[in-house]
């Protein structure tokens, strides 16, 4: 059993083009650490140096934003899904 992680297009270069990968871990932090072991370089795109979630990245466990749960300590069970969702913004000024 494992946790499914959904990878957005901009980060798929780091997963060899895979849209979904399976890793181990009982919390968001543990899942991201195992993701990094399997796909080196991906964690720095998601987290700051101190391990906090980057401002322009959102993480959802199933349909719940981890910022409204326990952040990086949010528990994850096997069969849960972790989605990495980039914050999309822009404008002419």
């Amino acid at each position, binding site marked *: 059993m494992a946790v499914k992680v959904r990878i*957005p*297009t*901009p980060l*798929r*270069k780091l997963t060899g083009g895979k*849209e979904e990968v399976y890793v181990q871990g009982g919390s968001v932090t543990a899942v991201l650490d195992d993701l990094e072991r399997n796909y080196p370089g991906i964690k720095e795109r998601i987290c700051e140096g101190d391990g906090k979630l980057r401002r*322009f990245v*959102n993480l*959802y466990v199933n*349909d719940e*934003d981890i910022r409204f749960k326990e952040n990086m300590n949010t528990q994850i069970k096997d069969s849960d899904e972790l*989605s990495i*969702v*980039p*914050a*999309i*913004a*822009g*404008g*002419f*000024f």
Partner: protein
Amino acid sequence: MITLLTDIADKILEHSRESYPHECCGLLAGKSAGDGAEKVVSEVHRMTNTNHERAGDRFEIDPRELLKAEKAMKLRGLDILGFYHSHPDHPARPSDFDRQRGWPEYSYIIVAVKGGVETEMTCWTFNSFDEPFRQEDIVAEG
């Protein structure tokens, strides 16, 4: 190169004119080949501009709305290829802020809307986090 099937271009322009003088935004869905070099957009979906204070010169997409749309696309075998947004009374070129907040691999269609009527559409992309935007050719098949 990015190909817009059927009425995709019209839908984007219509949304851009309708939203004037505010910026609109939406997502581009379809399939890509050749490592993302060839994109074919078969669907567009309007997204809410959640930047209410600065809707005139900024846009922001609600991540929850995006996640929901992405999951629905996936069930139909489609992927998110990028996004579109409008520049009311400003040129169809990415701003510094567009680049700052942009993500690699996605295509960004920008629609300039002059006076709410006249439009110009361009598309931009970059491959890695340290690269500037480069223009992508748009082919509209309708």
